[in-house]
C-alpha cells in the first residue's frame, strides 16, 4: 500500500499522521496498530555507538510490497504502510515503522505483527554496528 525506504531521519508519528491525512477511511476503520523499532545503545551485552544499515535497493521495496500484500490477503485490513531507514543511525533513532488499519483490532494487530516478523527474515537489510571493539555485522536473531 505504502512502502518507503529512506536515508533521512524517520519521524514515525509524523509519518503515520501524514499517511492518515491522505486516506479516506470514512468511518470504516475502527483500529490502527503501529509498531516502531528504534536503535538501542546495546546489543548482546555490548555497547553500540552507531550503526550503518545497508540494503539492496529495488529488492527491498519489492520484498516489502510483497510482505504487506500477503498481510492484506491474510487479514481484513484497509491500509498498511512500512517505512524503513537505511544509512547511518545513532542510538534511539527510529529504524522501522509498520502500521495497519482495520475495522477490527484483532486484524490490525495480527497484520502489523506479521509484517514486522516477515520483514526481519526477508527484507534485504544488514546492520553493521560500531562498538568499542570496532565494527561488526549483526548476526540474525529472532
Amino acid at each position: 500500500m505504502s512502502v518507503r525506504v529512506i536515508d533521512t531521519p524517520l519521524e514515525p508519528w509524523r509519518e503515520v499522521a501524514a499517511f492518515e491525512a491522505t486516506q479516506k477511511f470514512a468511518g470504516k476503520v475502527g483500529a490502527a496498530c503501529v509498531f516502531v523499532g528504534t536503535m538501542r545503545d546495546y546489543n548482546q551485552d555490548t555497547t553500540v555507538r552507531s550503526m550503518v544499515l545497508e540494503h539492496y535497493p529495488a529488492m527491498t521495496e519489492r520484498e516489502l510490497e510483497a510482505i504487506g500484500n500477503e498481510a492484506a490477503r491474510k487479514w481484513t485490513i484497509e491500509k498498511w504502510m512500512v517505512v524503513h531507514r537505511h544509512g547511518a543511525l545513532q542510538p534511539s533513532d527510529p529504524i522501522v515503522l509498520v502500521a495497519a488499519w482495520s475495522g477490527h483490532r484483532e486484524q490490525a494487530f495480527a497484520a502489523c505483527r506479521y509484517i514486522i516478523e516477515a520483514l526481519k527474515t526477508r527484507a534485504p537489510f544488514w546492520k553493521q554496528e560500531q562498538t568499542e571493539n570496532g565494527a561488526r555485522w549483526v548476526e540474525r536473531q529472532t
Partner: protein
Amino acid sequence: MAITVRFFAGIRERLGRNQAQVDASAVASAADVWREVAGVPLPPNTLIAVNQEYAQPGQAVRDGDEVAFFPPVTGGAA
C-alpha cells in the same frame, strides 16, 4: 549481454567487491554464477536472489539476469 552479480554486507566485504559480471554462456544456475566469480565455497546460510526475488542455488539463470548473494538479513527492530 551478461549476468550482473551483486554482493552485500559481509559477503561484499569478504570478496572485496560489490559487483561482478559473468558471461551467461559459462553458467546455467545461480550456484554456477557463484563458482564462476567467487573463488571460495558459498558460505553456509547465504541467501540468493535472482532479479530481486529469492531463489534456490539450482535456479536457472540467463543473459540479462541480476544474481545477488548476501548473508541472512538483519533489518527491522529489536
